[in-house]
């Protein structure tokens, strides 16, 4: 049993982000970057599966510039076995990411691919689904519980109405939701050991994959400032305002 986990390097969730001067993107100069929290959950889940003796190997893949090695190393420190950087300095949108992942999946033939349901920078929530379609594999998105069996996996999904449990045939793609697990802290000795784990680098440009962006960013702006709230004196007044002013009911 082999698990492939995809991780993205994003602005750390603690950072208060700012739009750059020409309103073209978020300012990334001297900003702390970390592993996407949903992807960290994916890594943690893979490690738990391995610790339960249900998997033999965890491969971590990341797509992006050479700095992504740090992101991969942090996943290796948590307990993944080896890393792969698909290196590119180009912007990669979800379809491009899914295509690169397809390439990696075909080369590595994992039984299971786990990735975050979305990245906290662009919040696309598309890559897992696209990968599943490209591979023609079953998908279990927004997982809050994963129960692995021989050749099958039960995935409990967080859906609007509550929880839904589905059974997928392996190989499959699973995307993680927030409540799947709580990632551990890396043990400090493992951070040292992670330096010695194998990390391969492959240039995306050499794969022949078309990663050309399909979307163009026109403008990036800060959200509008929230205006002050008001106090209402009664429920009747509240209902009246919701109906006539806010027009939400």
């Amino acid at each position, binding site marked *: 049993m082999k698990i492939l986990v995809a991780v993205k390097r994003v602005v750390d969730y603690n950072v208060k982000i700012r739009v750059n001067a020409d309103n073209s993107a978020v300012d990334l100069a001297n900003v702390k970057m970390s592993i996407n929290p949903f992807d960290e959950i994916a890594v943690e889940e893979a490690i738990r599966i391995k610790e339960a003796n249900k998997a033999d190997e965890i491969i971590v893949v990341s797509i992006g510039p050479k700095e992504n090695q*740090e992101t991969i*190393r942090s996943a290796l*420190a948590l307990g993944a076995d080896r890393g792969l950087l698909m290196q590119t300095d180009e912007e990669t949108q979800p379809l491009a990411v899914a295509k690169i992942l397809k390439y990696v999946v075909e080369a590595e033939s994992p039984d299971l691919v786990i990735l975050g349901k979305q990245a906290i920078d662009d919040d696309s929530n598309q890559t897992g689904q696209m990968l599943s379609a490209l591979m023609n594999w079953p998908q279990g998105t927004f997982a809050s519980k994963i129960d692995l069996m021989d050749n099958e996996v039960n995935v409990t999904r967080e859906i609007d109405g509550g929880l839904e449990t589905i059974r997928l045939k392996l190989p499959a793609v699973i995307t993680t939701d927030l409540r799947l697990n709580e990632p551990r*802290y890396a*043990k*400090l*000795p493992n*951070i*040292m050991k992670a*330096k010695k784990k194998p990390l391969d680098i492959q240039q995306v440009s050499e794969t022949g994959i078309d990663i050309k962006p399909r979307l163009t960013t026109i403008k990036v702006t800060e959200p509008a400032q929230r205006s002050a709230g008001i106090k209402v004196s009664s429920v009747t007044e509240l209902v009246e305002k919701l109906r006539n002013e806010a027009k939400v009911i």
Partner: protein
Amino acid sequence: MANYKTPLRDMRFVYNELLDPEQIQALPGFEEISSDLVEALLEESARFCEEQLQPLNRSGDEEGCHFDNGNVTTPEGFKEAYNGFCEIGLNSLTSDPEYGGQGLPRSVATFAEEAMCGANFSFSLYPGLTAGAIHSIELYGSDELKKTFLPNMVDGSWSGSMCLTEPHCGTDLGLCRTKAIPQDDNSYLLSGTKMFITAGEHDLTDNIIHLVLARTPDAPDGIKGISLFIVPKISVTKDGSLGEANGVSCGSIEHKMGIHASATCVMNFDNAKGFLVGNLNKGMEAMFVMMNNARLGVGIQGLGVAEASYQGAVEYARDRLQGRALTGVKNPDEKADPILVHPDVRRMLLTQRALIEGNRALAAWVAFELDVSHNHPDEKRRKQANDFIVLMTPVVKSFMTDCGSEVSNIGMQVLGGHGYIRENGMEQYVRDARIAQIYEGTNGIQALDLLGRKMPEHFGRNMRPFFHAVRNYIYAKEMNYELKDFLIPLAKAFGRLQKITAVLAQRGMKNPDEIGTASSDYLRMLALVALAHQWARMAEIGMQKNKGDDGVFYQAKIDTARFYFERILPQTGALFATMMAGAKSTMSFNDDAF
């Protein structure tokens, strides 16, 4: 309020730019310690301290430790935090890999220690005392003792304590009365009472390994008759498992001004089985080696708590709107300006900052020399590093804890009444910081150790590495016109320090009270010069990088250096005058008139 964030940016600056990471990596044993590894280690350590230790800081202070019939319970959440702390290895950073430690350089571990103290001072004491005990056993214990006790202490399942103080003796340990009676099986039975024992009893670990100073029946009087013993709370059987309870009990815990979540215990030893560590009657030597290491750690406590206070003060000064700037309205949209605009508030914040960053730089230098003194292949270089540490240990312990107290008091002042009430967490820093000036050898004793012992020892040899480093820096940079605002006052203060050193050495030979009277002022002056040296170096780096990437950080280095040289270093002038005045007014005062 009071939301501590590890100052990783400044730590990275100190490690990568003030220290030389390549020199650290060149030391045998540290070949794998690359800069990016250090970065990853510190980031994860910082994350744990901020997310797991900090939330327990104020709750631990409010709840305190509980004592019930000999049992001590730590505040809620401490046990889980302790387990997590050991799980990720924060307790064993510098311990010997042979016993399960990570063997990291002290110059790296120091930053992690700062983060622990900044996030939760009280918590840091439990693993801190264990680290001290481990260090003593590593250095002086027999192989058998090491094998029996170290693996479980290094992985954190057992903790340690240092039992020195007795009800009638603290500073003067020669008066120690605890008895150790030799037995046929090479062990000893210890009886006596120890007090102010940090982490003497608690519920974090299955066993507590006490290191106890005691006296055998035919030992000589005074300090030369003290030996060091290992006394486990629960005896350890031959196969390493836990046996019966030893004759060790906790009589009570103290009610203290601060560090409420740290159990400060009265420990009773009643025919408790113990084992000699090192040689008979040489207990103080073993203690001193351990204490040199621990004293740097105590200095770091002062630094950590100071940083936490500074962060709270800055946050408040930005948000709190009161009054208008003296030179005109700065914040026209509101009814008042943030108090950050007021000169006296800025004076307070910059004083905090200049002392904190200066101390961080100095501590890193001392930690680096500590690594050199252990790991450098050249014996001459090791000795030189050791001389430096011997001199700087009392300086770091004393000055950095004095600053911990000064700076946390300033932080409270910035918040005014909101600093004095408990809810905002600022007064806790003041109360917690205060102990560090007292324990592990009071700051007065540190000063006496510096001027009365470390300075004259080997005809002043201990002074050389520090004095030469400062002198060489001044000589090397004196033609650098851009640095003149820093070098001239540094050279002036250094000159004063050299002069007063010579004066005191001479006066001290005739009258030891001259040394005793001047010692605290001397220590502070030496520390202020040491910080000036660091600030000149930091400003120099700042000037090379303030136009580039992250220029704001480097410009702030230059500007803080300027503040230090203009507004803090001049204290050396007053200290010089105070010391020159001599001992007479202090010592001739009529005792009955007090």
